[in-house]
């Protein structure tokens, strides 16, 4: 395998930054997220970042088109498409899995989301293997291999003191060639991965949920939920959005921005009717969507076991505990 000492990783990133806008896992003001690489970013390699990489492809706020509305007239103007090639270094297996989910949503079922597709196509991915599970990780339960991601161009391996690189796609091969001058060939073994602290037995859950729409479990589970959007916003797979406009005088911009199924306004219709009026319906929809509706529609779970919601929920709504409750429900 091609390897480099871990402390020399910045050299690799520096070199790649000549050709790409390189995004790296970094910490700023106590929050970790993918950040454009520069010499002074504080790299985070020991654990996955808090904010998932979805905002690179599907930003929290994204301009869609401009318009000018004056009296009876209207002009609609599409925005120029960015051309810059991007590269994410250090995306983990769970987050790669989330891109698979997002691809299903944005690229299939008849319509292609141009905004997403454009960014997805010009972003190369260097995955980084995990050395040990964090306390809220349960990716293995969701069918993810934390040491071998699916869908990356290059798989990088965290070898404790070193980092190893293995090209997966043709694009990955090209990237690897660019940095090959910095790498040495070495026989290495990938460190063994520890035991997961959290587990979820998902076997049969989507099927069981089919008959559980009216089950009392939802009233029970939802009681402590605050109906804030923290879980949906830190989730790498949640992809709901709203479309809104920002208008100043005659000029306006149509934007789309993340929305959350936890908010009441999400399904509130103009006439006043709301099919999901209380937190019971909203919580039910969120977990049903992750564990039943999405698998039914796209043949995969909408949870990657990254554990972010478990860590960040202010009231500890734990999806693994909910899965357990579903399994145990009569």
């Amino acid at each position, binding site marked *: 395998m091609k390897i480099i000492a871990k402390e020399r990783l910045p050299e690799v990133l520096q070199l790649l930054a000549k050709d790409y806008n390189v995004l790296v896992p970094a910490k*700023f*003001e*106590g*929050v970790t997220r993918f950040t454009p690489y520069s010499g002074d970013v504080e790299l985070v390699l020991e654990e996955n970042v*808090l904010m998932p990489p979805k905002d690179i492809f599907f930003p*929290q*706020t994204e301009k869609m088109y401009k318009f000018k509305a004056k009296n009876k007239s209207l002009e609609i103007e599409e925005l120029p498409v960015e051309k810059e090639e991007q590269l994410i270094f250090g995306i983990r297996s769970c987050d790669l899995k989330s891109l698979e989910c997002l691809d299903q949503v944005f690229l299939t079922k008849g319509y292609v989301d141009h905004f997403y597709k454009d960014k997805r196509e010009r972003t190369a991915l260097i995955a980084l293997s995990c050395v040990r599970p964090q*306390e*809220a990780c349960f990716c293995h339960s969701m069918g993810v291999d934390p040491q071998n991601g699916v869908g990356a161009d290059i798989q990088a391996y965290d070898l404790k003191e070193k980092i190893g690189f293995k090209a997966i796609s043709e694009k990955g091969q090209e990237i690897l060639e660019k940095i090959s001058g910095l790498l040495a060939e070495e026989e290495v073994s990938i460190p063994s991965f520890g035991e997961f602290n*959290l587990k979820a037995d998902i076997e049969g859950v989507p099927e069981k949920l089919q008959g559980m729409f009216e089950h009392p479990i939802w009233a*029970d589970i939802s*009681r*402590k939920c*605050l*109906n*804030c*959007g*923290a879980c*949906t*916003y*830190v989730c790498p797979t949640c992809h709901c959005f*709203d479309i*809104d406009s*920002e208008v100043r005088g005659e000029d306006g911009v149509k*934007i789309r*921005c*993340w*929305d*959350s199924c936890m*908010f*009441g*306004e999400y399904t509130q219709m103009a006439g006043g009717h709301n099919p999901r009026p209380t937190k019971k319906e909203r919580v039910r929809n969120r977990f049903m969507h992750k564990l039943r509706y999405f698998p039914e529609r796209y043949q995969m779970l909408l949870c990657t076991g990254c554990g972010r919601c*478990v860590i*960040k929920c*202010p*009231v*500890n709504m*734990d999806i*693994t*505990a909910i899965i357990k409750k579903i399994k145990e429900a009569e």
Partner: protein
Amino acid sequence: MKEITLQMQELARELLQKGEVNVVLGWEKGTFWYLSPPAFIDKPEDVERLVFDDYCHHNLSKYLMDYRYQDGKVAVFLKGCDSRAFNILLEDNQLEREKYVLIGIPCPGMKDQEKAKELGINGDIPLAKKCQDCKYPNPLVYDYFLGDKEAADEAAATREAKAIDYSDVEQIEKMTPDEKYDFWSSQYERCIRCYACRNVCPACNCRECIFDQSRTGWIGKANNTSENQFFALTRAMHVAGRCIECGECERACPMNIPIMLLNKKLIKDINQLFGEYDAGVKVDGVLPLGHFDKNDPEEFM
């Protein structure tokens, strides 16, 4: 605290068995050892889930709003700050006192969850910042009181006398306007507007928040520093004089924004301008911004 836990369970069992209440709101152990999330107990056989330990941060009073229109009584465990929250909800006419059975617990202070995670179960974990400043660790309103009331009162008396440490606020006050703005912008730049701070806050009890009514145009869905600060400052002004310093907003924030630094500033100024005031201590209809004194400071001549 083991003792309190046992008393909690016993009392909850009794209330449920006698049918005095339909549900008991308390805390139970969560996914990790340093989490004690809210628990809703409606069967006597489930009372063993209840705990009281160093991590019962959650302010349960806010949940009482979910039971406003339900029949029957609800029992709830209240720490000092939770009881102030209950009073604020009474003050705001959100709750009827008779519907709730209040079980007061003297609070020794909750421990910092982030530090707990970092230092591990055997570490010497400090109190959460909000608890270091607490003046009212004992419940101010209750029907039952768990633990030794006298000892608790004595312990609390030393705290009430203690001046609140505003050094963090003062540090910001000393900055130049540009430094202040940079500081707050960098904090609110990362706000994702999940509204966890608002939803967890007992003073945020409007039937429908303006930030949930995008058709009114007060706030757009777009996330940017300007809109995020608009949200933060509007909320800070709205809870000014009603913030009971439970610090839940800051704990709930997934993005580590020091929200209490805004609230503390307002509390400090209210005390200076309009006289010492602690929200949720008394229910007397006299809120600092819902009330005035003809002799208030005059700066607008």
